[in-house]
């Protein structure tokens, strides 16, 4: 099995927040969504979502409630809170700044 690239450290929280910004989802849904949207490039060890979700819950960026799925199973759905939306904005800005900076360094290095 070919090794897929690891997630950049610290980005998992951001990805979860971004995914939840569209719609409330349960854990498996979040994992599927990330996988699908990244064309299978970004895979997380799926289970590691759960410690991360606990972290976000504790920080008050998401909230959770038990609901029924379409197949009538009980599952825990996570919703982005107002604080979470704000946090997402902060993280995206920081991420953009970082990517731009890294891109600039790489470009300069190529030109030099």
């Amino acid at each position, binding site marked *: 099995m070919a090794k897929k690239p690891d997630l950049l450290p610290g980005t998992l929280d951001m990805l979860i927040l971004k995914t939840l910004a569209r719609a409330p989802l349960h*854990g498996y849904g979040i994992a599927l969504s990330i996988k699908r949207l990244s064309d299978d490039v970004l895979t997380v*060890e799926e289970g590691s979502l*759960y410690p991360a979700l606990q972290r976000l819950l*504790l920080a008050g960026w998401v909230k959770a409630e038990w609901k029924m799925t379409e197949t009538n199973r009980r599952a825990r759905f996570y919703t982005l809170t107002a604080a979470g939306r704000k946090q997402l904005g902060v993280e995206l800005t920081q991420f953009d700044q970082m990517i731009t900076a890294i891109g600039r360094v790489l470009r300069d290095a190529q030109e030099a």
Partner: protein
Amino acid sequence: MEFLKKLGMLFGRKRFGSELDEEMSFHREQAEKDLIANGMSPQEARFAASREFGNATRLKEQSHEVVGFGFETVLQDLKFALRQLRKNPGFTATAVLILALGMGASVAIFAFVDAALIKPLPYAAPDRLMDVAENSSAHPRSDLSRADYEDWTRLNHSFSSLAAYAGTGYLLRTPSGIVPVPAARVSDGFFRTLGVKPMLGRDFLPGEDRPGGQKILIMNYGTWLTRYGGRQDIVGQVVRLNDESYTIVGVLPREFSFAPRGLAEFWVPLLDKIGGCEDRRSCHNFYAVGRLRDGVSPQAALEEMKAIAAQLEVQYPGSNKGQGASVQPFSELVVGQMRPILLTLLGGAGLLLLIACVNVASLSLVRSEARRREIAVRGALGATPVRLVRQFLIEGLLLAVVGCLGGVLVAGWLMVLMKGLIPNAIANGVPFLALVGLDAHTSMFAGGIALLAGLLMATTPILRLSFQDIRSGLGDGGRTAGGRLWRRMGANLVVVELAVAVVLLAGAGLLGQSFYRLLHVENGFDTTHLATIQVATPNAAYAKPEQKVALFREITRRLSSIPGVQSVGITSDLPVQCNCDTDWIRIEGKPFHGEHNEVDQRDVTPGYLPTLKAKLMRGRLFTEDDDASQSLKIVINEALAQKYFPGEDPIGQKVGNGGLEPKSMREIIGVIGNVREGGLDDEVWPSEYQAMYQSPDSFISIAVRTAQDEKAVLPELVKALHEVDPNLGAFGEITMTDQIGSTQSALLHRFATYLVGGFAAMALVLGVVGLYGVIAYSVSQRTREIGVRMALGAQKSSVYKLVLGEASKLIGIGVMVGLAGAVGAGMLMRSILFGVQAWDAGTLIAVAVALGGSAMLASYFPARRAASVNPTEALRAE
């Protein structure tokens, strides 16, 4: 905010867990379903889903950690550690016992060191207090004369106050009769200098110490309590001392103590100059304590006092020639002599603690070997290295804490034991003993060493673990490699143990020899079957010399008639006390330039020297006829004869004071072999013995030679003396052997010898047991190898050689390192050694043989087991 949420979660922990479980299994089921829908077989789908999901246990734990508090996992580890220790009661009990002994010894000794050397003396700003005294070539610190003290006080600018004190004793009239009580005479500013205020009543006022002043006194708290029932109205009452009335003006606070006069119960102002002696500048009987002015250093004070002494030397050449000044911190006077002994003991206790920790560390090492599989499993299940290390850390600290608690119990017991070793008379001179105990300082020290010990014990298995791949522990293959590694590390530890044991044994040996030699120095008289007692005669009834002489004759007669008593002698000072009560002599017809020829001076009755069994070398001893009607006569010791009459016959020569005044002239009639007047570790001084009947004292000591047990006669002495005169103060009855044994130098040496000896014995046992452990473990690991060797034809003897060879290598290194350390340690403690050198070959060889022998014996048992290995069984066992 987060903290509150976490706190809330604390109570929903169970629900949190079950919800997490449900969520995770939902996740896996969905994944599995989707995979099946994509055409995977159900079984494949289950594995794939699990793989994608990751290590569920670890993830669950991580989730718990997010909402849990950091210390919760520590609690888990602690619980696990406790379970581990309970599961191995043998290991736990051994480790705790060893640690408790090691820590207990250290804590107990530290309590003494703390009380003596760290805690301040109970005075205001005690570091500004200086001991002030004169100094001469013979005495680095000698008493001040009253006239010199007065001049020093007047002339100096270094001290804001300078107070004099001198020991004295009174006969106190009590309802039950006359009791001699120790007391002190002090200048009026004495308590103000120390910064001590009476608890009841008032301090002495300036000027109250002048000759002709009111007879007043201040008493100790203890005296007030025991003799006067702690009465609040005590101030203003009258006490009869030596049949004179003294008014009580104050009572000192409970915590007051003054080590140089530790026994004194009453404090009386200087008042009249006593016995014509204090009028003379050459009569030295005071010491002083001074409080430095702000900004004045002890060194500057010493320089100034030296200058003042030099000025007085010019002014009064007759009395002050060669009299300098000595200024040292007062604390140095109180604890200076104890310091080297206490530090030696602390060092010894520290070494013992080191051995104990190393021993327990190697025990944990053996156990970690047995736990390799457990560690590997925990690692495989996702325990992080940090968590594993923490487990060992917690186990080490837990052991240390339990050991420390045991150690505190041991320490408490040891302190009581050690205090018991010190007789009361000496204990009063070391007031810090009252401060020895388990308090904040000692607890902090105990906590500190527990932490260090815990870290040491945790580090050993951790170091051992990180050297190897955890995963290899799962298979069986890692065993031999790990075994070898452990052997190397265990071997290093055991070398440390053996080396430390050698150092302690050698230290104990040196101290033991010092102690033995101290007790067996040549005293110049027969110390056995000799009972002694002190007598204070009331002034009023025996004011005239002839009254005293009559009393002494009567005492001699009465005591001689006690059954079992062979002879009785009276002296001003008993032997083996101090080179004190000295006299400056000048020999008639010899060149003299005012130098101080200082000799011990003793007044003795005719019976005294024969009672001691002193050896007469030339001439004669005193007879009953040598009394006031005759010209003055003296007997001298050999040291005096050799120093002042080299190659001459001293008999018939005349000796006088510096001015050779006619009434001071005395004729030498005999020479005796040196009788040790000074302490056991002092050198023998020239001494002169004067006839007691020619210059009777009011304070005397009696020596009684008995045929049988001298102890039995002690109570008889008191009774007989009171039959002679019920008003005599008779006290301090003790046998000569006991008195010698309880002198300060003997006591300090005994203290050190017993304790270091105890430490060394424990160290020997621990070291040898440690070696046994290493060799036995090594043999058990090599059973297979030994089996192969024997199957290939190796003889039993070569197996013995194999095992004992390994052991003797360890022992050899340990002993060599230890011997080097022992010489170093001996050098460090040379100030408390007596008559023996740090590199004393006999001691070192004996220690090497004793330790080497017992260590070889300890390795013999595993060697025998190795040699009796049955090759077939050994090979099959694998």
